């Protein structure tokens, strides 16, 4: 499977085969999740209708974390095995992950204003999400910082891999910093069991967003592969004329 996909043409063929059913399923899950979440589920007895932000906020937060782990793994595959698709996947994933981090921060701010009375709170979770967002930006910037695009692949892969070790330390230090400065009274503990009427749309949204992420990443990978192919063809054309 791993070696099989090393050939971009094979990957393209497999992607073409999978993309339509995946996209259809993602759309179906998201539609069902949004309907159940935004319209059919009961409002929270404390939070009222604002609780519906959760159906977008939580999946986005999950994806941000997942995307960051995936980014580190892509870096590992690229450095150790020089897998040609790992670099493409890393470049395809990073902006999508950054976007989900941004979405998490925005929905969090929108949720925080009615619940906590402030758009932003220097809470450990919020802060580490913000730093994760900066980290995504750093990976994207480094991958595109060189005159020849492929030159940025290895530094970006190394950074993603270093981040896999270092970002947990950042998270730990931020947690530490916050627990010393203020009690964790603002964050609602996750111990509250969720009613099935709310859990079902949340799970649907989680599955739907993850599939959506996969579809977008595959589409971006196809686009990046096509871009490289065009660049290679152009280069061949130029040298052909010269020779």
């Amino acid at each position: 499977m791993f070696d099989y996909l090393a050939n971009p043409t094979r990957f393209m063929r497999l992607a073409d085969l999978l993309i339509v059913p995946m996209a259809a399923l993602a759309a179906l899950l998201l539609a069902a999740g949004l309907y159940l979440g935004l319209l059919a589920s009961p409002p929270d007895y404390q939070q009222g209708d604002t609780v519906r932000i959760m159906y977008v906020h939580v999946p986005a937060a999950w994806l941000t974390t997942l995307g960051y782990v995936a980014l580190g793994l892509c870096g590992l595959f690229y450095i150790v095995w020089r897998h040609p698709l790992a670099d493409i996947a890393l470049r395809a994933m990073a902006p999508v992950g950054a976007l989900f981090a941004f979405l998490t921060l925005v929905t969090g701010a929108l949720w925080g204003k009615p619940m906590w009375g402030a758009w932003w709170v220097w809470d450990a979770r919020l802060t580490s999400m913000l730093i994760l967002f900066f980290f995504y930006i750093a990976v994207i910037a480094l991958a595109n910082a060189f005159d020849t695009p492929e030159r940025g692949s290895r530094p970006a892969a190394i950074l993603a891999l270093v981040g896999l070790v270092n970002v947990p330390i950042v998270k730990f230090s931020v947690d530490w910093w916050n627990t010393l400065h203020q009690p964790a009274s603002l964050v609602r503990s996750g111990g509250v069991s969720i009613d099935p009427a709310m859990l079902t749309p949340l799970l649907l949204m989680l599955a739907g967003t993850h599939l959506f992420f996969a579809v977008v990443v595959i589409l971006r990978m196809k686009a990046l592969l096509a871009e490289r192919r065009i660049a290679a063809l152009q280069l061949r054309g130029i040298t052909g004329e010269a020779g």
Partner: protein
Amino acid sequence: MNILFAQMRRDLALIWAGRGEAAVMLAFFLIIITLFPLAIGPDMATLRPMALPVIWIAALLASLAGFSRIFAEDVRSGWVDQVALSPLPLGIYALSKAVTHWLAGGLPMLLATPVLALMLYVDLESLAPLILALAIGTMALTLLGVLAAALGEGARNGGSMMALLVLPLAVPVLIFGTLASTPDDGGLLSPHMLLLMAVLAVLLAIVPVAAAAALVEAETDSS
């Protein structure tokens, strides 16, 4: 071992020859610290609680200024190619760069800190933890800088790239450093000081390997 000393002697000689550059970094540190009272106001009561964070942020920003050129000259002149061919591993070379860069940039900042701390009304008894924490912290920052310099070597916008790469990863250094600097934190070797040392130890393990992997690319790119 001899090659390592030769490498470090060379770097130190180069730094000494261009000592104006290291002085600029120190001046940058002084200026940032001067700016804070100008913006906040000269009041002792407001300045004193801000003194330690201000010194830390100034050290962080002043360190950033010197990072982007750590490997630039060596890559351009082909020195890194020679190191890659020599028995000196690239990781150890990167580590020696961190040591010399810290001696040129971190150490002068450290020596200037007591005077600046007094200017910001820091108590004398909190000077010892501040200096120790700052010494460990600047070493950790220099290691992050070496990593960032190796990753961003040859990048189009070197300077701003350094800030983007270093600052998110420098969060633990800043947090544990400022906490360890406060005098009522339980002695010189407080838990936060030990955590700061742990961060330095982790970076000591990661940075040479990662920087060497990045330098291979920079070296093949230049030739």
